[in-house]
């Protein structure tokens, strides 16, 4: 039911049950917020969204207060503006004032608000928050002195990721965001997904940057510099650089990467094709032998760590296949290198991904061959965008180029694999094609697409029903466990830790609304429909290189190349 309220002297329509903030936003009135996140219950912690309501003695928070018919609201009265300004001044009183040397410089909500509220002098002086830098993890760095205690990371980690590696520790002045027993991050249950980075309004949480290292190697002539990137990277980079959508982002990115000094450019999507090929082999065997228990896809490195530390009572197995990035990494150093007349240690291998957990993945011991890392450095999309600017590359004036053989092509299976549910769909279609000789199309897998955190489908292959489950964000994992304990069995299970899949990864430009994530997924599915190469087997890279050189290579068997091992993790859960 709509009714009208008065805002700043004008009549404005509001809906019963909504908050003051949502009514104001719908009517084009902007209110600053710091602790608020869409799709989360408001906490009213930062007090920045306060407004003046006539008849109320105190200012009230717009984000948490329901709108009522009698209200006469002032959103930018002198009293309100003074309150907001003071809040930011108080936050700044404890802040380290290191904006010029901060990762989030020019990309910081606190900085933006200080500028918007016209804060030009230090009116309040406070004792600075004690400096504590935690860079013990491979993916996420915490800088506690920059934290403003908005609790967004705590809520994301608890409600979306469901790992709860962060919480408020201590009380009053000593309050800070900490981990269990206040340990450093590498001892905790953090699975490196990076969702906390995407919501952090300041530079208190950010990825462990590999920019400086990559930069150093790019100018080193003793190495051949090889780069691989995930399918969602080109369009995201184009968007971040403001390139017209009419240009092919992939060939443009190839041109940019060559200008930066990379010698060879490969597609991580080729690794995904190999993964799909191998996974469907495994599934085929499973179907033929009539094995029970689920096969869990291991393409999400955050999920793999979660499985290692927390999952011990589920029937079935975690596939030992590496992630696409690591498959490519292994192929680059053990197949491409000898073919190019190079030793593995003469190659510097970089990967660009939308994922922060891939940094952790690349550093695992099982991802090395004779002490040499398969992938040497991992850049997030954010870091690559920074580097493109650093190297002064004008993307508009960059000509399109092709990626390099043998991994210059990918099928559309690799594109949709970055959307939650996409990889399961691709594996199922491919398995079905291999077993029955015809492609079942997209229709049987329609229920795997969508936004709910747990989805399932029962496609039929040669008269046998195959049960597939998709866990979209770990919040859906509880649902899976519930289904399994109620007696349901699944043949194939795909788990993606980030809701929406890799297109909403912790290394993507933040923040993304649900609408935007849906758009990214839609884009991937659209690309898939127009792509002539829909199956890995139709990709020339697969039948020219992979089948000949890797799969049927007796001298250098695929086993160690494509498979990894897991460890039991002793962390504080």
């Amino acid at each position, binding site marked *: 039911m709509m009714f009208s309220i008065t805002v700043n002297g004008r009549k404005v329509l509001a809906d019963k049950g909504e908050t003051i903030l949502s009514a104001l936003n719908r009517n084009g009135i902007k209110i600053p917020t710091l602790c608020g996140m869409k799709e989360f219950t408001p906490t009213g912690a930062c007090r920045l969204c306060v407004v003046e309501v006539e008849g109320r003695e105190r200012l009230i928070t717009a984000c948490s207060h329901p709108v009522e018919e009698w209200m006469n609201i002032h959103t930018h009265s002198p009293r309100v503006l003074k309150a907001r300004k003071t809040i930011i001044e108080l936050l700044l009183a404890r802040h380290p004032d290191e904006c010029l040397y901060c990762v989030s410089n020019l990309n910081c909500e606190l900085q933006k608000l200080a500028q918007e509220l016209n804060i030009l002098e230090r009116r309040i002086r406070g004792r600075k928050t004690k400096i504590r830098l935690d860079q013990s993890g491979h993916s996420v760095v915490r800088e506690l002195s920059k934290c403003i205690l908005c609790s967004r990371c705590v809520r994301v980690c608890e409600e979306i990721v469901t790992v*709860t*590696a962060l919480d*408020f520790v*201590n009380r009053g002045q000593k309050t800070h965001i*900490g981990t269990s027993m206040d340990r450093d991050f590498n001892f905790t249950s953090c699975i490196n997904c990076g969702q906390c980075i995407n919501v952090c309004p300041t530079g208190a949480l950010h990825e462990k940057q590999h920019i400086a290292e990559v930069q150093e190697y790019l100018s080193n002539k003793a190495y051949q510099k090889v780069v691989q990137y995930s399918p969602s990277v080109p369009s995201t980079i184009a968007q971040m650089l403001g390139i017209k959508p009419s240009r092919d982002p992939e060939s443009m990115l190839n041109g940019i990467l060559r200008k930066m000094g990379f010698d060879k450019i490969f597609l991580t999507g080729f690794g995904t094709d190999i993964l799909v090929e191998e996974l469907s082999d495994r599934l085929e065997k499973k179907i033929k032998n009539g094995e029970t228990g689920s096969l869990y896809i291991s393409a999400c490195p955050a999920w793999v760590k979660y499985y290692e530390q927390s999952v011990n009572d589920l029937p079935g197995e975690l596939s030992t296949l590496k992630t696409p990035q690591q498959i490519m990494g292994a192929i680059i150093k053990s197949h491409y290198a000898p073919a190019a007349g190079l030793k593995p240690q003469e190659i510097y291998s970089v990967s660009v991904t939308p994922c922060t957990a891939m940094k952790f993945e690349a550093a695992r011991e099982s991802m090395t061959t004779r002490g040499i890392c398969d992938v040497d450095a991992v850049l997030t999309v954010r870091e690559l965008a920074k580097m493109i600017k650093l190297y002064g590359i004008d993307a508009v004036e960059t000509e399109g180029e092709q990626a390099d053989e043998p991994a210059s092509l990918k099928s559309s299976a690799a594109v949709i694999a970055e959307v939650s549910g996409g990889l399961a769909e691709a594996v199922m279609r491919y398995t079905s094609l291999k077993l029955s000789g015809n492609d079942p199309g997209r229709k049987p897998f329609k229920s795997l697409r969508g936004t709910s955190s747990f989805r399932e489908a029962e496609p039929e292959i040669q008269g046998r029903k195959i049960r597939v489950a998709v866990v979209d964000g770990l919040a859906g994992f509880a649902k899976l466990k519930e289904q399994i304990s109620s007696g349901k069995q699944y043949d194939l299970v795909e788990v993606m830790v980030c809701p929406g899949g890799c297109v909403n990864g912790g290394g993507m430009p933040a923040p993304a609304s649900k609408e935007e994530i849906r758009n990214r997924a839609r884009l991937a599915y659209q690309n898939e429909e127009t792509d002539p190469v829909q199956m890995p087997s139709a990709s020339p890279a697969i039948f020219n290189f992979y089948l000949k050189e890797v799969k049927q290579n007796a001298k250098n068997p695929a086993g160690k190349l494509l498979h990894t091992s897991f460890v039991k993790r002793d962390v*504080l*859960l």
Partner: protein
Amino acid sequence: MKKVSNPIDEILGRYKPARREDLIPILQEIQEKEGFISEQAIIRVGNHMKLSTTKIYGLATFYDQFRFKPKGLLHLVVCNGTACYLNGAGAILKKIREELGIEPGETTRDGRFSYDVVTCMGGCSNGPLILVAGEFLTGVKPEDITSILGSLKKNTTSENI
């Protein structure tokens, strides 16, 4: 093999699993029994409550009553309530920190001393107060601290540690 029952498991056995409202009483009981809340205790409580250890640690650190390191052989409770504070408890705390080299809630390396700060022990007219080994020291002055700690030290032989 002889089965050794763990005091923490014994406490947890008396509470139904996964009931959040029991968390503080459980932690209080463990502290009473063990003198502090260990990492092992937090892990066990987490398993019992189906809660992340981060949540339990976060909640426990909110309250002054919980400590996470074992107490020293001699545990000092220093009052910093309003009356004691006005009579100079701040200077006493500073002196203790200097002498022992530890913060409240911590224990010296030799395991001899630990101290906590509380907000009132009900002896406001005799402040500043320190409670040690069951005895109240009244009207403590900062310059007394060195000799108090010295005589306490003398009375505990290394065998006690």
